[in-house]
């Protein structure tokens, strides 16, 4: 055999002896991972957090830091305990922590009608820290062991921690008892909450541009809408666009009808229900949590309509301001059922 051939032969025999890695197709994957989605969400939330600092001052910053630090530390400690069953997931924990801070209600300022003091800052920090820890430990880690998450971790943790406090001590003084069922009382609430001591004198501007009451994350409705929309676009279809859209549309339709039936100022009525922090922030950052929302398009729409109706009902008749979190947890529990709705016929069988 000629020398040249021999050389080829030798190198080929090397290859023959070697087993290659065998993997199933596809051999490439798209660039989007869970972590990337979490990073996008975290960046978006940071922008919202900045608007909150603008509205609420340095207190908001400290609350945000407290929540994120507690969440990340809890996550780290649990990953040590759970080892393989729960690998460390810093971004996810940080996002949850930030949502805890941003979904915290800063209360309503002292006013003539409602002699409601804002929460003591120290109590605020403790509450945020406790909710943050409960979110990560109980509702992210332990719920995660079930194989899937049934309820939104932040909403559930907030309800679990705050409900007893509200019902025991703060309920009589807290904003959650504000009656907004009639337009007269709504106007009182608007005067009390959205013009007194607010950046703008006009309740409508306060509601849409910048407010310093209610949910920390809902400080600027416009910012939430812009950032939330940007997040939906950047995430290229990995977040469920239908949910915030349907939820907000449902809220608008119901409140407009309610205002129309009672002969009220429809714009104010709709603006209040849409832009109050607990609705706008929840729509873009909590209701779209993929793990606790339905898989099918129809399921998502039913979910969001239910969420809108429940939120409205809780606010009007339950006098539960910020009732959207209760509505969210209730709707989360229907998801296993909604997943079976709206499974369309595949290609060629329609």
């Amino acid at each position, binding site marked *: 055999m000629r020398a040249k*051939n021999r050389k*080829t032969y030798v*190198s*080929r025999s*090397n*290859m*023959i002896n*070697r*087993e*290659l*890695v*065998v*993997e*199933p*197709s*596809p*051999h*490439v*994957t*798209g660039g*989007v*991972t*869970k972590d*990337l*989605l979490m990073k996008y969400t975290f960046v978006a939330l940071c922008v919202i957090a900045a608007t909150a600092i603008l509205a609420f001052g340095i207190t908001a910053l400290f609350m945000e830091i407290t929540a994120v630090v507690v969440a990340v530390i809890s996550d780290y400690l649990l990953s040590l305990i759970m080892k393989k069953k729960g690998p460390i997931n810093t971004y996810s924990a940080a996002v949850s922590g930030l949502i805890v801070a941003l979904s915290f209600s800063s209360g309503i300022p002292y006013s003539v009608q409602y002699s409601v003091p804002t929460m003591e800052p120290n109590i605020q920090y403790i509450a945020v820290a406790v909710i943050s820890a409960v979110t990560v430990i109980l509702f992210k880690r332990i719920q*995660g062991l079930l*194989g*899937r998450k049934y309820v939104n971790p932040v909403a559930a943790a907030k309800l679990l921690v705050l409900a007893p406090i509200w019902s025991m001590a703060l309920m009589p003084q807290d904003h959650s008892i504000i009656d907004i069922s009639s337009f007269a009382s709504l106007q009182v609430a608007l005067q009390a909450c959205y013009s007194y001591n607010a950046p703008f004198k006009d309740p409508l501007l306060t509601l849409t541009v910048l407010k310093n009451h209610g949910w920390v994350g809902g400080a600027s409705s416009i910012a939430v809408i812009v950032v939330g929309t940007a997040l939906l676009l950047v995430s290229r*279809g*990995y*977040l*469920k666009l239908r949910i915030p859209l349907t939820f907000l549309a449902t809220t608008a339709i119901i409140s407009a009808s309610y205002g129309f039936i009672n002969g009220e100022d429809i714009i104010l009525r709709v603006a209040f229900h849409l832009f109050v922090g607990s609705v706008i922030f929840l729509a873009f950052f909590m209701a779209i949590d*993929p*793990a*606790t*929302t*339905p*898989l*099918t398009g129809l399921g*998502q729409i039913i979910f969001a309509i239910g969420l809108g109706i429940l939120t409205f009902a809780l606010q009007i008749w339950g006098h539960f301001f910020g009732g959207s979190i209760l509505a969210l947890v209730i709707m989360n529990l229907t998801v296993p059922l909604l*997943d079976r709705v709206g*499974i*369309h*016929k*595949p*290609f*060629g*069988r*329609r």
Partner: protein
Amino acid sequence: MAAKIKEKKEQARKVPIEVFPDPETAVILALQHIGAPNVPLVSVGDNVSIGQKIADSRERISAPVHSPISGKVVKISDAYNPCYKEFPQAIFIENDGKKRKDKTLKPISESELKDVSIDFLIERVREAGIIGLGGAGFPTHVKLSPPPDKPIKHLLVNACESDIYATCDERLIVEKTSNILKGVKIMRKVLGSQKVVIAIKDNKIEAVERLKEAFSGDPDTRIVARPFTYQQGDENLLQKAIFGYEVPAGKLPYEMGVVVHNVATVNAVAKAVFEGEPLTSRVITLSGDVEEPKNLLVKIGTPVGHILDRFKVSPNDIQKVVLGGAMMGISIRTTETPLIKRTTSILVFLKSKYKLVKRRTDCIRCSKCISACPLDLHPISIVEAMEKGDVERAKRLYLTDCFECGICSYVCPSGIPLADIIRKCVRGLKR
């Protein structure tokens, strides 16, 4: 919303087809198509010439294989068959370098085409061993003879070549445009179809220009250049994109009056009829992590390792080798694997550039696999049902409709190998 994939073709699409030298030893797998396995017609010690039929079957759905080189049959034993691991029989031929040609198939001239019978042409396509060269490998002569009660209105030539990295069809169109024109003529005659549609992705700019130029005098041929998605490379989805109807599940395109052929198959038919050349070579793309991607005209039966060797891909750097596109291709166990008719590309993934495919974590229920599935299946629901052992529910979700495009695994942010799980379940159910 249709999921987009990165095509990674920019570099290779400009590289002209290079003729790869004949191998020292060709390993011809007896079964390379979908259908009945072939039986060797030669025995050890026989001398064979280029284009000589060396294995065949009597079944209708089958296609013979031919010797790509002239030489001596040295052994008939097992080799690694990338598509059918249960049919490893192969014929090993040692090259004698004499390039003797077998003359069984007589070439006909273009002017003779109108005089020959349709049966002659179908027989010619079968004898030339032509199968679907887009990767499916279904014998072409069967697709060219639909039942007589189903008139074929359209011949649809699929030139989308949608899988990642593959550029061989694109180069073939650019360099062998006249062959495509001739092949289309033959197929039209055989099928009796009035209209021809050539579907091509609009970013193959040069190929589209060449086709438009070549078919400019033909009012019945329509070149449809559109931004087809990866999934629309599938024949049923392509028909929906072009004609608007959905082929009912379980039916074949001819029932809708359409026959779909890959553009490389059209080229092979033209060569078989006008040049009397059976299918013994094909154009492939060598790409992946290699520095200079190539388009090569390679003899069937050339071992993959031989090709890699020539382009100085060091065996110790290779992590894995994939035959076919990166989405649907098969990852092979050894580079001893010979090239078969269905191989469209050889993709090399090097250790230095290799990233572990995403590790599987819990589903985050983003529902992206559902919106990405071109068939509107529910991949994650099927996988959940199968993993719970609920086969009935999985069947109600039509898991057997899946054509394994792999887009669900591609988009999954949790790294769940959805396509692979579904593929294994479907295989399991069929058994």
